[in-house]
């Protein structure tokens, strides 16, 4: 084992105690237009001359394409073009992916010789309306030669399984075992080894708005403009340009607000590429907007799909020494984002517990399913579930109180480096737990549970304590490989602040637009805090990629921390110039002046003062009032880099710091299980989160409630079900069950604040909210309800079928 040479941590910051706007639940500045139905989503937008694209999808999970006849479709009314996979491969290069061996598993916007899952695109029609485009799809004649499909990830790795990508020679896309700390010793010295096999099935983001793009290729200049609700990675646009085979400086991606993402729109490059390709082919603007079936069967947000074999090394007093995780993950047919999900898990793999060693073996299996993408939590929610299941099982095996067992293992000194090398910046897990016990009326429910049990009712309490990491670093995309293809380390975010001649402030943001999070409100609050103005008076603009500054966009709960850093940096530059200008106008020494209530004044002499508007108007219109070297205008930008990352060690026994801001939460659902029907209902639900300093408590509460609702879906209802032959059985909201207002209980929410020592105001990210916790908490609650019957559920979602099967197996 080698240790990494760790650069110094960033200086510890002291935080301003009295804040005016940061920490206030203000009405969101984004909302009025959405309340009026004037959100301006992709589907609301038309461009002169626009045509519409629709994609023909494979009905087979695995088949060779032996012929496509498009004659009739091409001649259909209103049709401008029919593009097959073969033609698309001439027009465009493969789609970007983050997997190993990209040459051996080419991923394209349309399949060429073979389809690898139900829903994979095989041809696209461009027509005068979506109705006509879909009419023509029905006239395309595709000949398929069906091949045997493989659906189960473990079977996919076994000898003789049908190959998803012949050139790879195996369905194992990736395999590696990492050891962090002294795993052998911890397991050799353990009193008890708790083991389990756990299975998490796939669900997905399912935003109500699908992904889409309007592309306009200009043959005169070779430039492509794409309006889209996808593609946060402003800094990675060159990948789309590369696929489109155009210079990156000829591509302008203009961000539009999205009707939800939850990770689903992070890597969605396909719609932009399909619309772009069609526009170039027909010479007119083209809109491609997925319908629900497109989105469910061929998307970028099918989430984790894992089998775990886990061993926990325990001492009899409840001390957890180490964990040995062996996981097989089903990536589907292409390795879109590959191992990123596990990088996320490794950032907080030991949870809030002071373990000393971790073994992590991951095998990535290719199957005939939709490729995996990002879904809120991104692999960490699965890790939380696995770990809390194990801790809960350990408490039962050692006959220890589950609350006490957790408390015994809590990390209490910060900053704390976990065995993987990542840092936890700050935390107070006892305080969060105490708050949650009180808020949830834990003791009361234990009494209720005991009484109910006497009546034969099965009530369970699911207390879990888990982490919520935030602000990823790019190193987690490549530390999996000894020789990474692109060992990038930049993940910046930028802001431009402009003070106009009247003192009005406009903030320009450079990554994707609003996705349902609150970037505008948050930036407005931070600007208001710095400049002592009203957040509702701050104007927010999104800049397209052309003339854009480096930006990464949301993902991994990074937006608030990163934009806060950028706002702070841009503010500092503007205030420095404003100070110089004010001092000059007042003929005062800048050192004698201070910022007070929206302006600069001479310390102790309030009448010697210039407001921001006074300064701004002078800087805009009165050049001769200033020294020659003072430029007109009051505007500046900040490209803010990740506040704290370090490099991994060469042998990867230490991955460095790659997700340093560590939030924490305790969720306590109380459920009742109906033994006869296998249904689970909620009696209460309390959640306490600590995401450092809150910018807008209500918007964080929104993430917690909404995320918990999604977590309830993951725990009990939502699943992309493929049958044994690879047919997708859940391709509509009729069979993929998104929880409604009747399934989601009222939540009691508590906040706790342990500021980060390394960020502005001590902010940490919290965008993944309750989905990080709810699946684990609900599973633990269900197991608690059934423990006396010897029933333990180890598979999510806990559908009535699965629950009844478990009850039956225990003789119930």
């Amino acid at each position, binding site marked *: 084992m080698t240790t990494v040479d760790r650069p110094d941590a960033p200086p510890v910051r002291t935080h301003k105690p009295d804040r005016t706007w940061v920490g206030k639940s203000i009405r969101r500045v984004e909302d009025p237009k959405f*309340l009026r139905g004037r959100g301006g989503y992709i589907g609301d937008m038309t461009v002169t001359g626009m045509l519409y694209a629709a994609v023909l999808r494979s009905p087979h999970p695995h088949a060779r394409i032996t012929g496509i006849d498009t004659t009739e479709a091409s001649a259909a009314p209103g049709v401008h073009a029919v593009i097959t996979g073969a033609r698309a491969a001439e027009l465009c290069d493969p789609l970007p992916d983050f997997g190993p061996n990209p040459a051996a598993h080419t991923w394209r916007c349309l399949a060429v010789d073979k389809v690898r899952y139900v829903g994979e695109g095989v041809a696209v029609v461009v027509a005068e309306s979506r*109705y006509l485009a879909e009419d023509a799809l029905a006239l395309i004649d595709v000949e398929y030669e069906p091949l045997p499909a493989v659906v189960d990830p473990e079977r996919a790795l076994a000898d003789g399984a049908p190959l998803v990508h012949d050139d790879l020679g195996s369905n194992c896309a990736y395999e590696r075992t990492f050891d962090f700390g002294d795993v052998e010793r911890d397991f050799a010295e353990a009193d008890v080894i708790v083991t389990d096999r756990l299975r998490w099935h796939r669900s997905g983001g399912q*935003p*109500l708005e699908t992904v889409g793009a309007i592309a306009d290729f200009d043959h005169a200049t070779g430039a492509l403009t794409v309006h889209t609700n996808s593609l946060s990675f402003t800094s990675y646009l060159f990948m789309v340009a590369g696929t489109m085979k155009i210079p990156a400086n000829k591509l302008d991606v203009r961000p539009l607000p999205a009707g939800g993402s939850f990770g689903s729109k992070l890597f969605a490059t396909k719609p932009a590429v399909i619309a772009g390709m069609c526009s170039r082919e027909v010479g007119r603007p083209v809109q491609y907007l997925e319908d629900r079936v497109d989105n469910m069967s061929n998307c970028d947000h099918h989430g984790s799909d894992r089998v775990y074999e886990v061993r926990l090394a325990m001492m009899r007093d409840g001390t957890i020494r180490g964990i040995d995780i062996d996981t097989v993950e089903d990536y589907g047919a292409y390795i879109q984002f590959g191992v990123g999900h596990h990088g996320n898990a490794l950032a907080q793999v030991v949870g809030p517990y002071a373990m000393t060693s971790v073994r992590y073996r991951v095998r990535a299996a290719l199957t005939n399913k939709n490729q995996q993408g990002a879904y809120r939590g991104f692999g960490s929610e699965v890790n939380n579930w696995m770990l809390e299941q194990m801790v809960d099982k350990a408490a039962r095996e050692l006959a220890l109180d589950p609350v006490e067992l957790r408390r015994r293992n809590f990390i209490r000194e910060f900053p704390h480096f976990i065995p993987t090398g990542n840092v936890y910046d700050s935390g107070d897990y006892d305080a969060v737990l105490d708050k949650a016990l009180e808020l949830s009326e834990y003791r009361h429910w234990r009494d209720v549970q005991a009484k109910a049990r006497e009546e034969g009712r099965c009530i369970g309490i699911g207390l879990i304590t888990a982490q919520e990491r935030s602000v990823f670093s790019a190193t987690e995309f490549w530390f999996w490989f000894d020789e990474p293809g692109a060992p990038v380390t930049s993940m910046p975010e930028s802001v431009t602040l402009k003070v106009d001649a009247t003192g009005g402030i406009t903030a320009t943001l450079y990554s994707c637009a609003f996705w349902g999070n609150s970037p505008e409100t948050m930036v407005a609050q931070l600007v208001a805090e710095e400049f002592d103005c009203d957040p509702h008076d701050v104007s927010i603009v999104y800049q397209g990629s052309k003339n854009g500054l480096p930006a990464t966009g949301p993902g991994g709960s990074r937006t608030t921390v990163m934009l806060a850093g950028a706002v702070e940096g841009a503010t500092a530059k503007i205030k420095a110039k404003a100070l110089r200008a004010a001092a000059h106008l007042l003929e005062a020494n800048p050192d004698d002046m201070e910022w007070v209530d929206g302006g600069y004044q001479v310390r102790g002499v309030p009448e010697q003062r210039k407001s921001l508007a006074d300064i701004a108007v002078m800087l805009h219109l009165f050049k001769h009032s200033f020294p020659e070297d003072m430029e007109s205008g009051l505007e500046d930008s900040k490209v803010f880099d990740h506040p704290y990352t370090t490099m991994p060690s060469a042998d990867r026994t230490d991955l460095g710091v790659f997700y340093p801001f560590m939030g924490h939460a305790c969720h306590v659902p109380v459920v009742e299980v109906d033994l006869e029907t296998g249904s689970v209902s909620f009696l209460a639900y309390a959640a306490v989160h600590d995401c450092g300093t809150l910018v807008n408590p209500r918007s964080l509460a929104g993430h917690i409630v909404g995320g918990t609702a999604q977590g309830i879906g993951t725990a009990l209802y939502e699943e992309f079900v493929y049958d044994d032959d690879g047919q997708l059985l859940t391709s509509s909201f009729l069979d993929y069950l*998104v929880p409604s207002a009747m399934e989601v209980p009222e*939540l009691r929410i508590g906040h706790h604040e342990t500021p980060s020592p390394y960020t502005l105001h001590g902010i940490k990210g919290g965008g993944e909210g309750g989905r990080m916790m709810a699946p684990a908490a609900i599973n633990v609650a269900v197991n608690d309800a059934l423990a006396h019957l010897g029933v333990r559920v180890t598979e999510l979602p806990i559908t009535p079928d699965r629950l009844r099967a478990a009850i039956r197996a225990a003789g119930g």
Partner: protein
Amino acid sequence: MERHDVTLTVNGRTSTVSVEPRKLLVDVLREDLGLVGTHIGCEHGVCGTCTVLRDGESIRSCTTFAVQVDGAELRTVEGLASGSELHPLQDEFWDKQGLQCGFCTPGMLMRACEIVEQKPDVTREEVREGIASNLCRCTGYQFITDAVCAAAARMKAGSTETTGAQA
């Protein structure tokens, strides 16, 4: 394909459009009448995103053909606010943060409108049950429920004032 003339009164304004019989109401609203506030989430009648009011009752405009509602009175989200003044429901959705991405919001508001108009003293449980017709992927429904209850109370207080004066 043959076309039919369909006359619709939307938010008090009557127009006649010539459409194919297969054209969905939601597409007529969005494309022919330019009222893009009514959104499309699933196109198969489950999510409720496309909810509009027909003669005061909520319908799914994605599974309704425009020809089926020839002559109807419709209300969409565009008809809620008057000028710069938000409808109490819109104002309470804003105040209680009953929206995050805002995509389900127009359909949710129209459904809520039906609920509070039909039952001014609606209970919290009834609101939950009532809005279960509409999916929201962002909010977990809690703040929506808060908003609808607050708006119902406000609207009822408004009407008690006038009835109070009569009594």
